[in-house]
């Protein structure tokens, strides 16, 4: 009996102690010379390399860098939650995020970001990047990479159908379908992997036509938008031609590439390191432009998907952080060479592109894809993404899938997308 009560008292005491302990702040008081950088996947590697190069160039610097790698969804959620608290102590000094989130950050939390206009020259950058880091003439992020829209394809499967690499250049979607049918007949393999639910291909098509869900003022851009209509019709025609390897989600792309389930993949240039990780397919892949829509001269073969920028938060060290970011990500040739050759992340700063040293990459056969990517970047149409890009994507994606499945006609689905755009975008 006494033993029981001792146990219970022990429990009470422990709880009390922990309650007190729990009230203490858990974050380590940051020293004044700490710089924290948040990034994900290969861009975290860019940050690490940048820190390494910086420390080599400035051996006497007493700033300590912490590069934190997280999953992308996780990092974005943390950034948004931290921003909503209104306090910058939960935020890093520097972080990397996609173009799509820029407008939201600056519009709602602009005072928490450090303005970067005086630190570098924006005119060196391609217009399609520059336009998504500027608000009312002030620059709030360093443009870093572009998810240059390319079509990756298996040259061995193309050749098995009697075609050559030249036949894949500068196509329209109709020509692509013709080739697709030919290749399917010869090899039995579907021509293209697609996942309408994620609207990845959709976004590439919209930008290739120079259009987007919303216009520069944030109003819906669906009604009377011929380009949007043509994009949806083109996606549907791919399915009607029976040349699509349809996948439900992101992970299935990996499996499809690994197992050779499709000949081509239309996506951002950040697919390149993923494809090269399948060493056994070395020499079998090439890149070319995205096929273009037909019906207008404004439609191009170039696009962009999920490029990103570096942001600096307004904290004690934001001055130094801005200089660091500009010095490394905007001006450092060694970093640019490293990232381009290791991870196919080509710079979008024309000066860095001019001085780029390209190493041979036998994975892509004789094709120099890095120079090709740089060349493509010159022609990407400029589109202001504005707010709510992801919400629109995840709403439009399922609707496009239902359209392709035949549940809606093109006119019906356009009405639905219009209604969604009004509900999502009109609240601005």
């Amino acid at each position, binding site marked *: *009996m006494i033993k*029981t009560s001792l146990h*219970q008292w022990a429990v009470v005491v422990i709880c009390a102690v922990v309650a007190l302990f729990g009230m203490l702040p*858990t974050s380590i008081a940051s020293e004044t010379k700490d710089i924290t950088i948040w990034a994900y996947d290969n861009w975290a590697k860019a940050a690490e390399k940048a820190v390494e190069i910086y420390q080599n160039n400035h051996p006497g610097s007493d700033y300590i860098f912490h590069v934190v790698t997280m*999953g992308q969804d*996780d990092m974005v959620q943390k950034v948004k939650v931290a921003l909503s608290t209104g306090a910058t102590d939960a935020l890093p000094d520097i972080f990397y995020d996609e173009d799509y989130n820029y407008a939201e950050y600056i519009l709602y939390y602009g005072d928490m970001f450090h303005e970067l206009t005086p630190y570098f020259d924006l005119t060196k950058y391609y217009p399609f990047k520059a336009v998504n880091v500027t608000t009312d003439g002030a620059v709030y992020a360093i443009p870093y990479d572009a998810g240059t829209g390319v079509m990756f394809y298996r040259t061995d499967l193309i050749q098995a159908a009697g075609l050559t690499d030249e036949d894949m250049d500068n196509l329209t979607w109709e020509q692509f379908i013709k080739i697709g049918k030919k290749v399917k007949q010869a090899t039995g393999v579907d021509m293209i992997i697609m996942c309408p639910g994620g609207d990845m291909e959709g976004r590439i098509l919209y930008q290739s036509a120079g259009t987007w869900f919303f216009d520069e003022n944030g109003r819906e851009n669906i009604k009377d938008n011929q380009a949007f209509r043509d994009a949806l019709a083109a996606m549907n025609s791919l399915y009607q031609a029976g040349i699509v390897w349809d996948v439900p989600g992101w992970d299935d792309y990996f499996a499809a590439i690994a197992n050779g389930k499709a000949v081509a993949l239309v996506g951002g240039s950040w697919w390149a390191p993923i494809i090269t990780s399948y060493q056994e397919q070395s020499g079998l892949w090439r890149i070319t432009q995205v096929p273009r829509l037909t019906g207008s001269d404004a439609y191009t073969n170039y696009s962009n998907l999920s490029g990103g920028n570096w942001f600096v938060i307004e904290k004690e060290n934001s001055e130094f952080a801005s200089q660091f970011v500009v010095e490394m990500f905007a001006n450092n040739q060694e970093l640019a060479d490293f990232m381009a050759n290791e991870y196919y992340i080509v710079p979008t700063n024309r000066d860095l592109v001019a001085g780029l040293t390209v190493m041979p990459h036998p994975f892509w056969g004789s094709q120099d894809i890095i120079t090709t990517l740089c060349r493509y970047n010159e022609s990407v149409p400029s589109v202001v993404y504005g707010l709510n890009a992801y919400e629109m994507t995840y709403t439009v994606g399922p609707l496009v899938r239902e359209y392709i499945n035949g549940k809606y006609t093109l006119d019906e689905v356009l009405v639905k997308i219009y209604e969604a755009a009004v509900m999502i975008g009109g609240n601005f």
Partner: protein
Amino acid sequence: MKNRRLFQRGFLAFSSVFFAFPYLLMLLCCLSTDAGIKGNMLFGSLSTEHFFSNLSNTFQNSQFICAFFNSCLVSSIASAATLLVSSLAGFGFSVIRASWSKLLLAVIVFSLFIPEVTLVIPTFQLAKNMKLLSKYITLILASLSIPFSTFLFCQNRSRFPSDLIESAKIDGASDFCIYLRIYLGTMRRVCVISLTISFLSAWNAMLMPVILVQTQEMFTISIYLNSVSSIWSDDYAILMTSLSLSTIPVLLVFFLFQKRNPSDPGFLLN
């Protein structure tokens, strides 16, 4: 008669396979490599060598170790706190005879029906405004399961008959003494059950903790696994090993509970 037995045995066997196969599969994946799992060559790539390398890789992952430790800490404290608070309340309900006590009990049990989903955003806003985000106390408060435990104690009221109270009072004991010495002693079984269930629920809690904890050092296992799910290329074998390891404490606690209360589900429904 025989057919009936056969049917029942067959059904139990089939169910056992249904319930057990994910665990078996997970264990098999721990014995394999990333290439083996992805390339669908699971059975061809099993070896204990892979198992040990996966294990060592998992233990080298400092984030995982930190999350594991945090989970142990938070779950233990949350379950102890739940036990304390709900046993106090259970005792209170046993001794109070007034009719409004039933109303209070209804209020407590009704809170079980309020979905966690509804409470996520206001809890987040309140914690944010009180500057309590990413603190251990917030995590512990969010992992308590007081309503269910109190319900358990009240359900098992019959184990604590009122004549015990009477005889103790005649001996001159105060209420708190009765609680400490007699109530907790007679309700020992329920205490163990309450500890177990609140430990399990604290360990597995995800929706609230993910929102309330923003710093990596304070992740619990559930939050860590959730954050890992969106990383591009992950070694599946190491991931499976992490998953297996993260379920072990829960199963341990559960087995310990089973040892003390063998096959007695009656507690839930007196």
